[in-house]
């Protein structure tokens, strides 16, 4: 449905009247819908030439970021990839800064220096988006190690794709996480493709993450990454275990991206039936229907949708209105003293 559809005012959708269970459902739907709305707008802005460079959308994959976002504690850490809009938003990062960053404006979360591939909001536990395949898995370990020795109970969640399971850093990170019993959850979003190549063509096992879990002394876990309830549950379990000193997990969530790998890619290398099959499992309308079937009031859902649409609009306007970064800004923040000097 469109976010501007009329809301039935008769149903009572105020949070006070929802059960704790329903609050989780609404939280998940809110995540799903916000991410979807944001990325659809972002896509339009790319097509209008307002976003430069490249960008990688999670359209179709939102349930994973949503499920984990809801399961995490505010001070937990997220490590994401270049396909990280969803994961950054799921931690509560305001849309304005994210949209500003995509448009290369001064109001971006990274002041325009990062761009779509490097969204970060430390304030919200979004510890960065990394554009080199595999690199952030060892880094996520580091945050988990630090939480462990500082005794804060913080858990680190690290997202990556199926293709990433074939790079060396994956192996090194998983082994160390287990040996040091780190509070880290590795989440493989298996969307069946690396860029344009089916993951099965380049991988020795069928389930690129789950079939390797035993190589690190870990349990093999595969979940439906398009089902927010399932993701939320497995996320809660794994995060809880990590928080209680039970060590790392590796979760493979099966999913699919609706579009191409990145802005430039129409995704035509994928069989039509495959695309159709997965589109039928689109988490956003599917979950909406499920909640309706569970008796969640239309108004509660519509309110979420209206709010998300308004936020996307506001973020878009703010980003468009924001100036580009000042040229001098390029010389700031290389070093902790705020500057860029390499000589005296």
């Amino acid at each position, binding site marked *: 449905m469109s976010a501007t559809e009329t809301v039935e005012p008769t149903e009572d959708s105020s949070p006070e009247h929802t059960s704790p269970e329903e609050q989780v459902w609404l939280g998940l739907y809110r995540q799903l819908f916000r991410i979807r709305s944001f990325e659809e707008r972002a896509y339009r802005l790319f097509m209008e030439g307002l976003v430069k*460079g490249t960008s990688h959308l999670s359209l179709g994959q939102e349930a994973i970021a949503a499920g984990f976002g809801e399961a995490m504690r505010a001070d937990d850490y997220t490590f994401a990839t270049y396909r990280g809009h969803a994961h950054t938003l799921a931690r509560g990062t305001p849309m304005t800064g994210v949209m500003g960053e995509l448009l290369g404006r001064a109001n971006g979360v990274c002041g325009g220096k990062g*761009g*779509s591939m490097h969204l970060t909001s430390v304030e919200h536990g979004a510890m960065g988006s990394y*554009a080199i*395949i595999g690199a952030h898995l060892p880094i996520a370990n580091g945050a988990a190690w630090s939480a462990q020795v500082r005794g804060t109970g913080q858990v680190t969640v690290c997202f990556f794709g199926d293709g*990433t399971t074939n790079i*060396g850093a994956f192996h090194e990170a998983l082994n160390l996480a287990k040996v040091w019993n780190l509070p880290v959850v590795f989440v493989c979003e298996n969307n069946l493709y690396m860029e*344009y190549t089916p993951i099965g063509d380049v991988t020795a096992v069928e389930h690129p993450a789950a079939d390797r879990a035993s190589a690190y002394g870990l349990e093999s876990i595969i979940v439906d990454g398009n089902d927010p309830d399932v993701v939320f549950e497995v996320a809660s379990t794994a995060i809880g275990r990590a928080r209680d000193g039970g060590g790392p997990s590796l979760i493979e969530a099966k999913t699919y991206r609706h579009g191409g790998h990145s802005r430039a890619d129409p995704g035509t290398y994928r069989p039509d039936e495959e695309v159709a099959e997965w589109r039928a499992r689109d988490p956003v309308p599917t979950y909406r229907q499920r909640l309706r079937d569970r008796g969640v009031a239309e108004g509660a859902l519509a309110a979420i949708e209206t709010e998300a649409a308004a936020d996307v609009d506001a973020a878009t306007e703010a980003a468009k209105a924001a100036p580009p970064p000042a*040229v001098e800004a*390029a010389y700031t923040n290389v070093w902790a003293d705020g500057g860029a000097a390499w000589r005296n």
Partner: protein
Amino acid sequence: MAELITYRDAVARGLAQEMRRDPSVYFLGEDVAAAGGGFKATKGLFEEFGPERVRDTPISEEAILGAAMGAAMTGLKPVAEIMFSDFLATCWDLVAVEIPKTRYMTDGQVTLPLVIRTANGGGLRFGAQHSQAVENWAMAIPGLKVVAPSNPRDVIGLLAAAIRDPDPVMFFEQKSLYPTKGEVPDGEIVDELGVARTLRAGQDVTIVALASMVPRAMAAAEELDEIGISAEVIDLRCLVPLDTRTVVESVKRTSRLVTVEENPRLVGWGAEIVSIVGEECIWHLDGPLTRVTTPHIPLPSADALEDEFLPSVDRIVEATQKAVQ
């Protein structure tokens, strides 16, 4: 006869030229086969040469270069693609420690006729991890040849030379040049490595540039002409072997040197050119040895910032004026 083609298409044409000629040339990389490469620079090769000779790989840069190296040791002439030159860092051990040293360490028992192609440099708003110009990293490693063409014709000629060369060659394609067009003659094109090209004669100053900086240096030279400064422009084309003769002879005539590079400020290849000139032509110099570089910062992604930091025509003009004063 000549044809106007893009730098991007020249890559596929150069590869096809050599793969037709030599059945021991194999090509491998991520998404290079049916997909034709992340930059679509290798379209058509899979269709012409098939899945044996044009191979998709996992995202495993060390495995890619390892496969290339082992195959080169034992009879093949592999061309490996590393999608972005930034990713060379993930297989730098192969690039810097295995491939370049093995012939030497084995005292010549092993020969490594292989080429590593990669998309290098900035200008596409890809941010700090997908925009680096790292040809200086490769130049620092004894045992690597280093090539960086500035135009479609050179892409073909130098790629052919690289593939025919019996030593490992790092082939840097400047990604901002992919859509640019240039004239390419019909028939086979094969160049020689290590030969710079003087694109423009001049008396007052020698401007040495590479890859994407070549068109900018040429544009700067035109502008300088208008204000009465006659600039000689040299397209280095290769960093190793390095055509020091062309550079040194030019500077001896013009008495002034400006290098223009995409590398960040410290220890870019410009520093090497300056140092050679500073040692060998010191008595001929009539102006400061001047480098135009990207500042020593990671490249920011916003267009407003990126444009400011890659050496622009304006900055080249300005620096050259200062060098000539």
